[in-house]
């Protein structure tokens, strides 16, 4: 089953390119230890999900590119055609001459309705190319204007027009020290609206990925392209094929549907985060070996101590002793040490994957009291290595990890809102104070739901 990617705004288009490139290079790199037949099945599965094939055998990304300025889309198309390995469809781009000026309201209320028909037509055409559509992956930033405002609008329209298809929004969380003064307003408007119309919000934190580039990949001058490659690696390791069941060698048919069923069935808990290990530069990779036990021990501690990468993990955090009230139940204003999960999915790729012991993730103390580990924990596996890593593990988690940053953003936005700063920029385009208040109350509710696990 296929997934249609909708790339929105500068951020969405740049990330989208890296994701397709990562998927392609992983699928068509040397298969390593796995058999030719298995490798072909893996490639076919990836192709069905993310690419369509033209008559001459060229692979075309299942994607629609949308931006209000032509620059980034042109760059993206150029990059894809220069690499010459796969391409975007010529008729799947939509761009205009004038951006949204980092104003969510402009993207949502002006660009959205004005270009709704053209964009939805493009999407409809791409949907018709799929034998079966599992759902949409919508890549956008959270704090800008076009990606966030228009992206939110398009997500709502997708919900109206394709109510039976799944929608996962890849939301890029802004730098804490972002340069856009209204980024907190944009963020709360994006998140609250997406909470109503999307099935899952996969949050990518710019700050965290920046640190991974710096500490793990040893990159001196970190560019957006570096950050996006790390992000694409994480997404690729999530969505590349895995076996459909323990002991089976068939690949999963509907990764998006299965993932959502496992992680986000509850409508109040839709926030997902992804962590991958190991992550390191190619040069150090050649001199490193890994064991499943070591990787999983690190990954588990990253989960419970809410660490974004394998460096600087706080090893003192322990799960609460079962039977006693969990730390997660303490009120939010106290510092959360232990990160309680609702549901986790671990994806293992590589050699001897069947021997990996996942017992550490099945501890009931890791999870909320109303879900047993049998409901809350799942593992996907494949023997095929991912992206040159002999062994790699990815954790997709629905947990309290976002409570603090979300609380921070809501708090900052509220302080600005209380002094009515910049509100006229929004009311000018039809986003009223009432809409802000709705957004605040919805996000407060989300925070409190996550706090009271």
């Amino acid at each position, binding site marked *: 089953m296929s997934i249609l990617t909708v790339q929105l705004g500068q951020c969405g288009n740049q990330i989208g390119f890296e994701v397709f490139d990562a998927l392609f290079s992983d699928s068509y790199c040397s298969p390593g230890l796995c058999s030719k037949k298995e490798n072909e099945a893996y490639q076919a599965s990836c192709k069905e999900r993310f690419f369509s094939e033209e008559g001459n055998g060229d692979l075309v990304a299942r994607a629609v590119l949308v931006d209000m300025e032509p620059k980034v889309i042109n760059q993206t198309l150029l990059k894809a055609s220069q690499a010459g390995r796969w391409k975007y469809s010529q008729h799947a781009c939509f761009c205009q001459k004038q951006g949204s000026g980092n104003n969510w309201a402009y993207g949502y209320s002006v660009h959205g309705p004005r270009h709704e028909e053209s964009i939805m037509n493009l999407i409809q055409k791409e949907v018709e190319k799929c*034998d*079966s559509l599992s759902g949409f992956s919508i890549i956008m930033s959270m704090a800008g204007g076009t990606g966030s405002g228009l992206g939110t609008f398009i997500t709502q329209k997708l919900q109206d027009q394709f109510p*039976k298809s799944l929608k996962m929004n890849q939301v890029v969380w802004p730098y804490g020290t972002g340069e856009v003064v209204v980024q907190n307003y944009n963020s709360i408007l994006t998140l609250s609206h997406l909470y109503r119309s999307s099935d899952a919000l996969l949050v990518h934190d710019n700050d965290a990925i920046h640190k991974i580039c710096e500490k793990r990949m040893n990159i001196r001058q970190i560019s957006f392209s570096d950050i996006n490659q790390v992000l694409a690696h994480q997404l690729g390791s999530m969505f590349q094929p895995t076996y459909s069941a323990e002991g089976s060698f068939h690949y999963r048919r*509907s990764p998006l549907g299965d993932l959502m069923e496992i992680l986000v069935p509850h409508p109040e808990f839709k926030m997902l985060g992804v962590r991958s290990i190991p992550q390191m530069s190619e040069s150090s990779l050649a001199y490193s070996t890994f064991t499943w036990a070591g990787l999983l021990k690190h990954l588990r501690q990253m989960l419970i101590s809410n660490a974004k990468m394998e460096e600087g993990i706080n090893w003192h955090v322990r799960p609460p002793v079962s039977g006693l009230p969990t730390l997660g139940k303490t009120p939010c204003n106290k510092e959360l040490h232990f990160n309680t999960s609702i549901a986790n999915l671990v994806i293992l790729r590589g050699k001897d994957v069947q021997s990996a012991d996942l017992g550490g993730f099945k501890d009931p103390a890791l999870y909320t009291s109303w879900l047993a580990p049998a409901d809350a924990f799942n593992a996907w596996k494949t023997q095929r290595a991912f992206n040159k890593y002999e062994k790699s593990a990815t954790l997709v988690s629905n947990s309290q990890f976002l409570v603090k940053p979300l609380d921070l953003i809501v708090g900052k936005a509220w302080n600005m809102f209380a002094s009515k700063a910049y509100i006229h920029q929004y009311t000018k385009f039809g986003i009223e104070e009432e809409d802000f208040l709705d957004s605040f109350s919805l996000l407060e509710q989300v925070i409190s739901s996550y706090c009271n696990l």
Partner: protein
Amino acid sequence: MGRRRRRLERQAGAGAEALPEAIAALSRTLPTRPNPETFRRAKFDLPEAAPALWRLLFHVLLREDDGTAVPYPEAQVRLVKSALRAHGYPRPALTQLPEDGSQGSRELLLALSWLLAGGSLLGRLLTRTHVLTGDQMPMCECEDLAHATACLDLPAPCKDTSNGLDMRYVQWLMGKLRFRWLNLICGHQEQCALLSKIHQYTQGCHSNQSLGHLSAAETELLRDPEAGQQLLWRLERENGRLEAALEWRRLEPIFWQWMDTVLGACPQCPSDTGPQPTFQAAISDRGHEELELVTRELQALWQELQLAAEARRTAWEAQVQIQGLELSTPQVLVSEAMVERQLATLRQAWEQWGALPHGPHRLVRCESRALPGGGLWGTEAIKALRSKAACLEAELHWLQGQCQQELAGLAGALPEVVWIPPHGH
């Protein structure tokens, strides 16, 4: 009923020695193919026959042959008991059997015969394992549905609910159901798209001119000759079953006579004043079964009507009391017109339901305008299904409305509690 009984007796007298054959034929027709000796042991209530019979009943009542895991024996026992209860099995002795599945072989034999006596069981089992070579399209599945709803009432997994169930867990399960539902729809759409491709690409390949193209199963045979062996094996197995079923039909009376002796060996239970299990053997022809179904439906409808009329009447009386006799003629006319309109909609819906085509159909892509005998155009089928969906949706809305009213009533009883509707779906 009496006539059939007499016929049974006459035939049974002729071939008492054929009992082992009858039982062997029955066992070859049933899914787990139990050892015929199991039946003889069960007559004497020997414990060693019990596990095989529990397993058999489990497969007969609940399990599709889809290769999914079979639950533990204890769970099987619980599932069988509850499925029998849902089917309306009358003997209380069965429910009192221990859950480890070690005892009660005679009770289980009685239960099995009770199911057989219902008449449609073997037919349904044979349909379930029927080997398909064409692309089937189920039309009206009312019989399947009746069966499925009987099976739906399964016992909840043994969970300690004394601490109360967290509402969030229920919401979680609801969400899971929603995603599975979407996944299913998506899978079904994919299947349709691929079937359409197969039909298009294989146009003109079929030896049968009226079909024109190959089905998915036939295409698979071309692709993979190994699958041909598999198919042959499955067809042979099905043939064996069908032959056994024919043999069983011939020898059935002998079995029923023997069952009378089994029942005779059963100690009479004083509280069991319900109908004798053999009574059911008489109602085996289709007409009776359908009649029963219709009668039940009619009774349910009648009760519903009574309730609704009662509620209307009280509401009306209350209204009249308030308004006195101020009701004007136009108002009466308006409400009469409304009632008539509602009645017409109901009638129309009913007629459409009645006109629905039944049973599975082979899906065939057809270029010509002519419709083969007994055939049905896709557009007609879609129209019929749409109207059915609309009817069901209307019913769902009505039920949801009822639930909301009930909830509102409950909420009203707790004035100090604030109710906030959830966001999301």
